[in-house]
């Protein structure tokens, strides 16, 4: 029994056991011998030892904590620096990885998401540049073998009337197979029935949970209720569960019945058969399209783009996020190196303290515990501060989430990353805080006392040199990378969009069908709204367009020119239906000819205003006015020429542009492209404009909602928002890195000067010139910087090549950027060294000798 009790005693700290263990065991044995104990002996032993051992540990911990707080308060600079360094490392890393994890790794909120695939026509690649025609969709369904099921859908912006204020929503018309493919059951009611290809459900709608909650007050009797979408009645048959949102930001779903004619503009989705890989599905689809092409004339050839639903975002997001993660990791490593350096110099500074305490009888265990407590306290404090930093940084980083991502919501802080980063920091803290002190406590203590403060052998100094070099290299990598990205943003921002966004407000009034089926009724609405808006004080001009540049990037039509052979695949141009004054309002420069006019009615000859690149493409060096071309099938006469607009966005090339009078077009095309965006150029402030426009629109049609109210400058800014956000993040990280590297150099040199103060003192006493001594310290700092810069530049070049896609044509070895970055690092190195160099020249020989 006694042996069991002694084994239990191991729960106590070793020093306590050593002090009292024998006595306790003896007392326990005597009590048993005298038969004083009650109950089974084993239980008595456990009840005796366990709570008391815990209490002893707790009291030691409290002591250690008190001591830690005292000693950290005494060296406040160290504590602050350490917490800051840890916080920056953990914060930056956690925020970066949380966002990346959300975009790149978070599973889609559907069952077996790895089997969900997006399908489109057109050349293979990441995204759907071309949408599917109904014809091809049917062929894909009929001929492919890899899919358990395939579906098609189309986005459909609608006005919802009949539930509070009229609202503008994005609906999706789905073939009945889409919701079963996603595999999410409705929350209420049912989804579309596949009987007769959805025909049975032609006038039904399924609501999203938030729409049901907000617009219909969670009405439990919603099923069977009739709502108005764009003026047509739809019966609600179901409500989807909370969190379901596909496509992203769609709030209501209707049944899509495929027409037999050449229907265009479908998006495809499919679920792979069990065991079929995405690679197999791709080759299957390639086989299908090749088969189709062999049966068709060349102008009807098609292609496919098949990729996992998970990957529906541009590859540059992946690059960007990987760059961000790289930067986060760099900062974490920098923090570790910096912390290691801080701890090493602290350990050296405390060698005497520990040696003294050991000599006074403190066991090694107590000292190790003490250091452990300090490391944990620092790591926890830094972790908490890092958590705060990450939560501040996350909203900024969320701007980097691509809008096409099929995952709903935004990124939250990833606690696994936070934990891992804290762990890495903790291990660093232990490694560099604990082991030197164990060594000094165990073996070197007598030496430490004998030698005075000049301990810290060559090995430790080399390690510190390496750590500082690593920090410099990492900060060079970050500086160059962010420098390149800053230059890239500058390049993008300096691109002329082709229009003047200042003082232009935009409003959307999308006219619903079938209420506005008639071109004449629509024309009346435009004329009435425009004439009243133009009469408002402060309004210089106003116009309607079927799509704002950079907002609507589709709207392409094939061009043929009578008498010109343009090959079997006709080139395309973007076309927009506009009202008069559009160019004036948008600040698109007029080159020749006239604007579209109110007199360009459907019955009059169909005209067009074209862009300069259009003229260059078809009639180079000739007068284009009066020339004719066909857009799709309709013959148009050129009446005016305007400047080009980057309608696809600043970073993409745009097709030539054609502008058509708002009412001159075939019904079928005007249905999808009738003007809906009202643009107003105003003088002075835009405040109050919305209220006036709302009054005017209400008067024209009380059921007509207004949406997408924003200045044109905002549209332009969103073009560079991701880049600007990314640059801000990387620049902040680079600044942090630079600061850390500077602190590292300074710390190392300050320490070296302190270490060598005796040697310096002797040199000074023997007549050494202070200038030479300062030079010695400076050159040491300089050498360290150079050792770090060379691998840093090489690393940065490798990184820049990897993220070439983000550089907008900038050379990864851009000399100006590399030069600036290297210069900055050298500057910081010198700044970090100067303080120490000055201190070295002021070492007083007498003081240095006396300190021994």
């Amino acid at each position: 029994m006694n042996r069991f009790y002694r084994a239990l005693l191991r729960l106590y700290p070793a020093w306590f056991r050593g002090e009292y263990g024998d006595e306790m065991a003896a007392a326990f044995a005597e009590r048993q011998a005298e038969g004083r104990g009650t109950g089974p002996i084993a239980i008595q032993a456990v009840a005796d030892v366990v709570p008391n051992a815990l209490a002893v540990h707790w009291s030691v911990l409290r002591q250690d904590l008190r001591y830690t707080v005292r000693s950290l308060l005494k060296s406040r600079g160290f504590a602050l620096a350490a917490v800051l360094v840890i916080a920056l490392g953990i914060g930056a890393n956690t925020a970066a990885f949380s966002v990346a994890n959300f975009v790149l790794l978070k599973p889609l909120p559907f069952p077996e998401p790895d089997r969900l695939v997006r399908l489109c026509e057109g050349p293979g690649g990441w995204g759907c540049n071309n949408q599917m025609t109904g014809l091809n969709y049917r062929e894909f369904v009929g001929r492919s073998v890899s899919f358990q099921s395939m579906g098609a859908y189309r986005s459909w912006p609608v006005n919802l009337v009949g539930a509070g204020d009229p609202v503008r929503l994005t609906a999706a018309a789905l073939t009945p197979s889409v919701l079963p493919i996603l595999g999410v059951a409705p929350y209420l009611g049912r989804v579309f029935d596949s009987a007769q290809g959805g025909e049975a459900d032609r006038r039904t709608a399924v609501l999203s949970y938030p729409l049901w909650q907000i617009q219909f007050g969670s009405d439990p009797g919603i099923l069977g209720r009739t709502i108005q979408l764009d003026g047509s009645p739809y019966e609600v048959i179901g409500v989807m569960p909370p969190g379901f949102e596909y496509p992203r930001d769609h709030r209501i779903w209707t049944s899509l019945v495929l027409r037999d004619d050449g229907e265009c503009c479908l998006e495809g989705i499919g679920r792979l058969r069990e065991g079929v890989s995405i690679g197999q599905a791709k080759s299957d689809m390639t086989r299908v399209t090749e088969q189709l092409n062999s049966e068709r004339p060349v102008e009807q050839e098609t292609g496919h783009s098949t990729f996992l639903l998970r990957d529906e975002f541009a590859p540059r997001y992946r690059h960007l996020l990987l760059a961000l993660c790289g930067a986060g990791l760099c900062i974490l490593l920098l923090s570790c190196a910096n912390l290691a350096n801080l701890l090493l110099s602290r350990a050296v500074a405390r060698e005497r303290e520990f040696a003294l305490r050991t000599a006074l009888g403190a066991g090694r265990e107590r000292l190790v515990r003490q250091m452990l407590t300090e490391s944990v306290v620092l790591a926890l404090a830094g972790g908490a501060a890092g958590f705060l930093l990450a939560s501040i940084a996350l909203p900024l980083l969320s701007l980097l989430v691509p809008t096409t991502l099929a995952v709903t919501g935004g990124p939250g802080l990833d606690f696994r990353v936070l934990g891992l980063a804290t762990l890495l920091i903790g291990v660093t803290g232990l490694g560099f805080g604990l082991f030197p002190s164990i060594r000094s406590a165990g073996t070197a203590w007598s030496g430490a006392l004998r030698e005075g403060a000049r301990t810290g052998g060559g090995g430790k100094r080399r390690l510190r040199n390496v750590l500082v070099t690593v920090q410099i290299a990492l900060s060079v990598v970050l500086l160059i990378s962010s420098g390149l990205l800053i230059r890239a943003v500058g390049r993008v921002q300096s691109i002329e969009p082709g229009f003047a966004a200042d003082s232009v407000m935009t409003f959307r009034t999308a006219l619903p069908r079938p209420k506005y089926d008639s071109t004449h009724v629509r024309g009346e609405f435009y004329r009435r709204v425009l004439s009243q808006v133009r009469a408002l004080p402060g309004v210089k001009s106003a116009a309607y367009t079927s799509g704002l540049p950079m907002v609507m990037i589709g709207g392409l039509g094939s061009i043929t020119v009578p008498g010109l052979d343009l090959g079997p695949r006709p080139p395309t141009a973007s076309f927009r239906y506009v009202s008069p004054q559009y160019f004036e309002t948008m600040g698109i420069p007029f080159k020749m000819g006239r604007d579209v006019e109110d007199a360009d009615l459907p019955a009059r000859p169909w005209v067009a205003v074209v862009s300069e690149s259009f003229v260059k493409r078809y009639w180079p060096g000739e007068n284009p006015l009066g020339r004719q071309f066909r857009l799709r099938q309709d013959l148009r006469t050129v009446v005016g020429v305007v400047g080009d607009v980057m309608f696809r966005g600043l970073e993409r090339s745009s097709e030539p542009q054609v502008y058509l009078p708002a009412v001159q077009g075939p019904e079928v095309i005007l249905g999808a492209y009738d003007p809906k965006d009202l643009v107003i150029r105003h003088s002075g402030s835009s405040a109050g404009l919305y209220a006036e426009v709302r009054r005017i629109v209400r008067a024209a049609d009380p059921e007509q909602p207004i949406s997408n109210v924003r200045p044109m400058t905002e549209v332009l800014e969103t073009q560079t928002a991701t880049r600007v956000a990314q640059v801000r993040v990387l620049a902040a990280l680079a600044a942090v890195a630079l600061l850390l590297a500077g602190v590292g150099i300074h710390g190392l040199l300050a320490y070296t000067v302190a270490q060598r103060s005796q040697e310096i003192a002797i040199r000074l006493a023997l007549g050494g010139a202070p200038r030479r001594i300062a030079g010695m310290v400076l050159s040491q700092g300089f050498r360290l910087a150079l050792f770090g810069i060379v691998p840093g530049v090489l690393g940065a070049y490798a990184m820049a090549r990897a993220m070439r896609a983000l550089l907008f044509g900038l050379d990864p070895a851009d000399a100006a950027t590399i030069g600036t970055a290297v210069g900055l690092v050298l500057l910081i190195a010198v700044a970090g060294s100067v303080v120490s160099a000055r201190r070295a020249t002021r070492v007083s020989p007498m003081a240095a000798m006396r300190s021994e």
Partner: protein
Amino acid sequence: MPIDPAALEALLPLHPQTFHILLSLARGDQHGYGILRAVEERTGGTVQLSAGALYRTIHRLLEQGLITEPRHPSGPTDDPRRRYYRLTAFGRAVALAETQRLGKLVKLAKHSGLVPGTA
């Protein structure tokens, strides 16, 4: 060594176990198991100290300077190999202060009509 009244005051009130241990040492040096037995006998077994609780308290009392470990214990030593503990002047003052505190409490209770046997 003069006794710091503030340090003394900070230790009051004493935990009953602590008070019992100090009482056991009031009449002379004692080893750990002796304290255990003395406490049990004095209280008729109502206060039972485990070995773990005893030595944890002893360690604290040593640190606080209420007791000390004499090299040559005085009085009857039944086993010279054991470790003996002795009340310090400070420990005696603390025990005394606790006794006075308890006495005042008892007096107060009596004044309030709480006399044993009358309830």
